[in-house]
């Protein structure tokens, strides 16, 4: 199955990325080659009775009781520290473009 310009444009929107024409063309060529190579996975036929694969089959299936902390309030990070990296802030809040008329 070969992807085209529409798929690239759609995925760019999903990815919140802007691609100019030349970047979109390069991305199309690149993604086509990569996806073509990934067709090798079609060789695998999972057993129909196998449970659905999960992201982490190695993590404990239930959190041990000892790892659940007490339900108490702990200090948060100071506001000043969190705003220190903000591109635009006024000491109290982040400043963002107006999005509601």
């Amino acid at each position, binding site marked *: *199955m070969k*992807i085209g310009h529409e*798929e*690239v444009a*759609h*995925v*760019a929107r*999903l*990815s*919140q*990325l*802007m*691609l100019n024409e030349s970047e979109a063309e390069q*991305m199309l060529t*690149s*993604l086509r*080659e*990569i*996806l073509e*190579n*990934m067709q*090798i*996975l*079609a*060789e*695998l036929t*999972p057993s129909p009775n*196998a449970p*659905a*694969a*999960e*992201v*982490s*089959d*190695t*993590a*404990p299936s239930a*959190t041990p009781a000892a*790892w659940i*902390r007490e339900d108490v309030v702990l200090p948060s*990070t*100071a506001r000043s*520290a*969190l705003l*220190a*990296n*903000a*591109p*635009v802030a006024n000491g109290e809040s*982040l400043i*963002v*473009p107006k*999005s509601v008329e």
Partner: protein
Amino acid sequence: MSILHMSALALSSAIRARKLSAPEALRELLREISRTEGTIHAYLATDPASALQEAERVQAAIDRGELTQSPLAGVPIALKDNICTGHLKTTCASRMLADFLPPYCATVAEKLVGQGMILHGKLNMDEFAMGSTTETSCFGATANPWNIDRVPGGSSGGAAAAVAVGSAVCALGSDTGGSIRQPASHCGVTGFKPTYGTVSRYGLIAYASSLEQIGPIARDAADCAALMDVIRGRDARDSTSIPSGERAYHAALTPDVHGLRIGIPIEAMEGNGEGDLAPDVGARISEMALQFEKMGAVVEKCNFPLMRHAVSAYYIIATAEAASNLARYDGIKYGHRAKGEMPLSELYARSRSEGFGQEVKRRIMLGNFVLSAGYYDAYYRRALEAKRSITASLDALWKTYDLLLLPTAPTTAPRMGVSLADAMGMYSADRYTVLANLAGIPALTLPCGFGADGMPIGAQLLGPAHSDARILSVGYAYQQVTDYHTWRAREVSV
């Protein structure tokens, strides 16, 4: 005495025996950084003044009789620049985070400081850990100290190059698909990826959360074991972290490998249609196998046909997770924001497009594609099934073998500029390393000789989950009877 050829353990012993002080050791290292950085460019940030202050503080603690249970006290260490440090910018080698000073420290950073180690710098890497050459760093590439026209590997290229040239005693990198092991192999040093969950990822800026681990890059397996003892352990702040046993890995090192059963997958040694294994790399792996036989191990060929699916499974899962993890970079709370007045949705897209490099954009696109409606089953779900099948294959092999031996990379370090022109070729070269990430198992790379071009070659040992101490011990045993890990790049060229 000069510290420049010393292992971390030997350096700490010397400091604690008063042969030199922690500040003296650090000052010599800082001079070496100045001497080599113009050529190698391994570092993105150093803070000599605060590092020296820390060295004085650690020395005072040692003088008071403290830190006696810390085998690495007084040793300087540098961190890959995706590990958050509160006093040094953490950029992931990206324009997106070029000015980011974290409001917190990674758990591993706190642990290192707690054991009297001195954080003295942040190391270059591929942008957001996406790459195999360190060329995608927005701050410029790092050179391989063995030949500065070659890449150091990636994405922990700065870490491997610094340890190789001697401008770091030891370092921490991160490994999502081979990013500790492959650069360690290309730079002739030792690198270790732990069992998934062994080391807390709190403070590791995420690329692919179900695959990655922080791990050591150092002069030898003993140093790696000692560093693992510092950084491992269950952390309440990382819900995927797990306990890793009370006994120190370093205390478990033994030169005895009698009766150890080692399998070499034939698919790893033959091209198997994915690209060739360079003959000199194959030869060095075979020599390592013979060495282990001489030491009393049993080495056999084995079959691992599902290996051929590993690269595809890895790149689908890793990019899917990356697309999710990097969705947070929208120019609002931190990171690069596009200048000028524009609607919010355009602000997001413009900030991201200006902040991310080409390889990061490609992986975000690929990740969102494989998760999108109409393609999820054919790609992402299949990849998860392949991951499960690969893990099951390995579980079957562990019934017969204690370890698997295979190459770390199919060739020696490529020339600069070559890999990025062939993305699929670059991805395919990860076929030996991604196995350990997909299965969540530990893997160690050891220098095992040199190629026909004089460049270092590394071999990998893989083991079952939670066999970290044993793998490091086997690596230690190999390094008692070989000397490849003692060769220094600075003797060859700088």
